[in-house]
């Protein structure tokens, strides 16, 4: 599953205003509302669900990246928002380091395999130091979009 198939390019935030985990999650959820990916009335509930999931176990996988996620009935397809923080956010990551890139993933209730495929794609690319470095350097939504499209087109990149 390619980035293009689930990342909402209208919901990319080059400069997250929030400096804390829950604020960053709320900001990315709002971006998905603005991009018409989730219903405005669901925003609060989605934010709460993601935060709750994050409290159970951090999705801060180390190396400056976190992938908060949850299944929610408000979406019919897997959708992701991507945010960048220049100050770094405490996500209680495995390596105890701040997070600079946040990928928020919301999956429908009834399609676990699509969720797994989106995660596979995210982590396949995040494994690569070069990808993480470029992701962290993206200062404009356009640059982020270019990066993800390039990653889609060159699987071995």
């Amino acid at each position: 599953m390619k980035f293009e198939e689930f990342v909402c390019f209208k919901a990319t935030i080059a400069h997250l205003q929030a400096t804390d985990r829950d604020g960053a999650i709320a900001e990315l959820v709002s971006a998905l509302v603005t991009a018409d990916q989730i219903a405005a009335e669901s925003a609060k509930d989605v934010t709460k669900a993601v935060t709750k999931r994050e409290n159970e176990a951090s999705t801060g996988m180390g190396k400056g990246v976190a992938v908060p996620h949850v299944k929610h009935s408000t979406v019919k397809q897997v959708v992701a928002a991507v945010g960048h923080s220049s100050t770094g956010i405490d996500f209680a990551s495995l390596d105890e380091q701040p997070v600079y890139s946040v990928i928020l993933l919301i999956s429908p209730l009834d399609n676990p395999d699509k969720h797994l495929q989106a995660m596979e794609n995210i982590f396949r690319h995040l494994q690569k130091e070069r990808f993480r470095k470029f992701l962290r350097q993206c200062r404009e939504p356009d640059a982020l979009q270019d990066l993800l499209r390039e990653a889609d087109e060159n699987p071995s990149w």
Partner: protein
Amino acid sequence: MQMGERVLEKLVCETTVEIRNADGLHMRPAMQFVDLAGRFASDITVSNDETHADAKSIMQMTMLAAGRGTRLRIRAEGSDAEEAINALRELVETHLFGEPPPAGKD
């Protein structure tokens, strides 16, 4: 290296397991798997047809994208290989990672 010397006993154990919980090997089960694998000294790898993952790396385990019904090959090499394989198989197939099976089945 001297032949016949048994200073370091290297055992190799392999098995195939089937993912049986409804949501498959998503992040939480993958973390349980990685935690359990980490308790053993053996080197452990998990593979599907395309990907080989280090069982002690959450990033690599997530890359298996193993949905329900997927069969995974687990290979352990080291002094506690057999114990590792048995414990991991139990987590996947007996305990289903503490998650429910697909709806409508026991």
